[in-house]
């Protein structure tokens, strides 16, 4: 299996700091919010990489920075062998055809004054891919693909439910036949029964069109369901990254272990037997991350070195990356 892997996206030492300024007229730079602080990962072609983390962990910023919707502070992003950081203007726009995004809020991400047809056709127009009859046919085809009636093209977003709107957002993302789709919390505003509809659709589209997904969400069960591999983020850093089964059966990082144990399983018989690791306190502010390991302030297993030296993000066994002083490659079975 390892031999066939083709890397579509390579992210190395990506950082995104948002400056904190003080003063109304003369703005002084007084600090940084380290939203993403040195993350590295690959996305393989055709896979779904899940990116999971709590509020403020920087998972959305990773997605947006990868598309250069935010300008990265530092780091390298290579997409299909092209260095994204060196691209400018038109070159970058052409590259963006191959990477699209599905947003969290289906109410805010669709322009209420545009018909569904013109929303889906917009990428086709921006990139001048098709016109006239061809464009209209493409829009109808896309609506069919996401399970909506092609006649809906003349309607406005307010006429649709949340789940249907998310389908419209998906159709728009697919309009240009992208290679990579970044799904940023695509289902978290939907009801449970509708979430399953949208997730099944995303899975079908992936096998139909050979899409690669970066699936960003806070719902660990859902991310594990849809992903091939998963990365766990905490306070701007990736703590652990590995295969979806490995991370469930053999989580190495204390944060991953706590996160897993906090997720409720909808089965009273399982819940009875589960041991919860209850973390103390809250995530620190990304403006003042702790010295050493970012998780050291809440870690139940922290030792002295954890609050002094930042652990490196290393491959502790094949395909299993972890950033923790307590996890050493030679100690892992």
């Amino acid at each position, binding site marked *: 299996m390892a031999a066939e892997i083709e890397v579509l996206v390579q992210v190395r030492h990506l950082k995104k700091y948002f400056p904190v300024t003080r003063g109304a007229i003369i703005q002084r730079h007084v600090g940084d919010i380290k939203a993403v602080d040195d993350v590295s990962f690959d996305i393989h072609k055709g896979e779904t990489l899940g990116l999971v983390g*709590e*509020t403020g962990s920087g998972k959305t910023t990773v997605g947006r920075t990868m598309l250069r919707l935010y300008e990265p502070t530092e780091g390298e992003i290579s997409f299909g062998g092209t260095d994204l950081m060196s691209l400018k203007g038109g070159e970058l726009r052409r590259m963006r055809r191959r990477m699209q995004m599905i947003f969290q809020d289906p109410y805010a991400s669709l322009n209420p004054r545009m018909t569904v047809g013109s929303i889906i056709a917009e990428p086709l127009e921006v990139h001048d891919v098709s016109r006239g009859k061809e464009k209209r046919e493409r829009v109808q085809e896309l609506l069919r693909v996401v399970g909506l009636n092609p006649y809906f093209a003349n309607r406005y977003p307010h006429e649709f*439910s949340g*789940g249907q709107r998310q389908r419209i957002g998906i159709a728009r993302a697919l309009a240009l036949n992208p290679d990579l789709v970044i799904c940023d919390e695509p289902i978290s505003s939907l*009801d*449970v*029964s*509708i*979430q*399953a*509809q949208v*997730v*099944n659709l995303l*899975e079908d589209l992936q096998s139909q069109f050979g899409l690669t997904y970066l699936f960003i969400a*806070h*719902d*660990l*069960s*859902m991310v*594990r*369901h*849809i992903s091939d591999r998963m990365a766990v983020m905490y306070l701007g850093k990736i703590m652990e990254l590995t295969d*979806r*089964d490995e991370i*469930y059966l053999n989580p190495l990082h204390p944060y991953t272990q*706590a*996160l*897993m*144990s*906090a*997720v*409720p*399983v*909808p*089965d*009273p*018989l*399982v*819940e*009875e037997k*589960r041991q*919860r690791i*209850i*973390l103390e306190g*809250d*995530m620190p502010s990304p403006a003042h991350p702790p010295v050493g390991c970012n998780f050291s302030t809440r870690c139940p297993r922290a030792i002295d070195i954890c609050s002094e030296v930042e652990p490196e993000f290393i491959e502790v066994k094949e395909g299993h990356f972890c950033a923790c002083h307590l996890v050493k490659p030679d100690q892992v079975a």
Partner: protein
Amino acid sequence: MSEHQGNRSSNILLDIKNLATRFYTEDGVVNAVNGISYALEEGGMLGVVGESGCGKSVHALSIMRLIPSPPGRIEAGEIWFDGRDLLKLSEGAMHHVRGAEIAMVFQDPMTSLNPVYTVGFQIMEALKLHQGMDDAQARERAGELLSLVGIPESFQRLDDYPHQFSGGMRQRAMIAMALSCNPQLLIADEPTTALDVTIQAQIVELVVRLQEKLGMAVMWITHDLGVVAGMARKVNVMYAGYIVERGNVKDIYGRPRHPYTVGLLGSLPRLDAAPGTRLISIPGLPPDLIDLPTGCPFAARCVYAVDQCLEAMPQLEEVEGEDHIVACWRWKHVAETHHGEER
């Protein structure tokens, strides 16, 4: 307290009979709660689950008589609490019930705390109002309450404003406030929905611990079937303003009888699921509450539906041998097909 009459049984705390709440809006009459009945015993732990618009929050607000009117109106029913029908109480008597006997915790701890008063002031307010404490007593008690809900350095934190608290701490403060007058019933309406999962685990643990310690009844309203699985003893499943299934937590999750409950459980990914499992989604959308269908509200999305389902709403029927009721014409068939497959 003078209105003691009838219906007082030894261990039933809350007894709701045929409650119906509607909203009269410009677009039409919204049938939010359509005649629900159930009882909750003293010290019980009830989970109320359902998706948005199923009437779970409206039913809780009806118990508290906090339905904004207009446009809302409690149209029918009785809510017996501790020997009194809350719907017949005067507004003054209801004032005493709210906060002192039934307390409520809401979803968003930021909007339910007043940003311009300190947390301590807001906790002390209820103590002074309901328990007639003076400032010093109330402050002492407020500090104790904050430490009870696990806020460190609680006496110093009394002088903080809500914005100085994190989301999880605000929800703890809300719980402290709710517990201030030792209520017999705590209604928690999606208390952890706005919180992260590690913080949710903290709050769930806190409420379970407090319930055991203080012996109050808890009603936990949520859309998340996972949260309720680990803590509730009884579960009400609501759909389109009806209770469609009610039973012990193990029966509801282990042997669901209503097709909606079956569908809801099938559409949830489980953390412990085997690779390659596909979610079983429920097709379609919940019905429009302004224009409810004549028959079963779930019929249009139900794979088991027959003509009878479209014609008349099924009554709640008892499942033999279990403390379990279900409103479905075909529940026996559902049970056979669904539980047959599993074995």
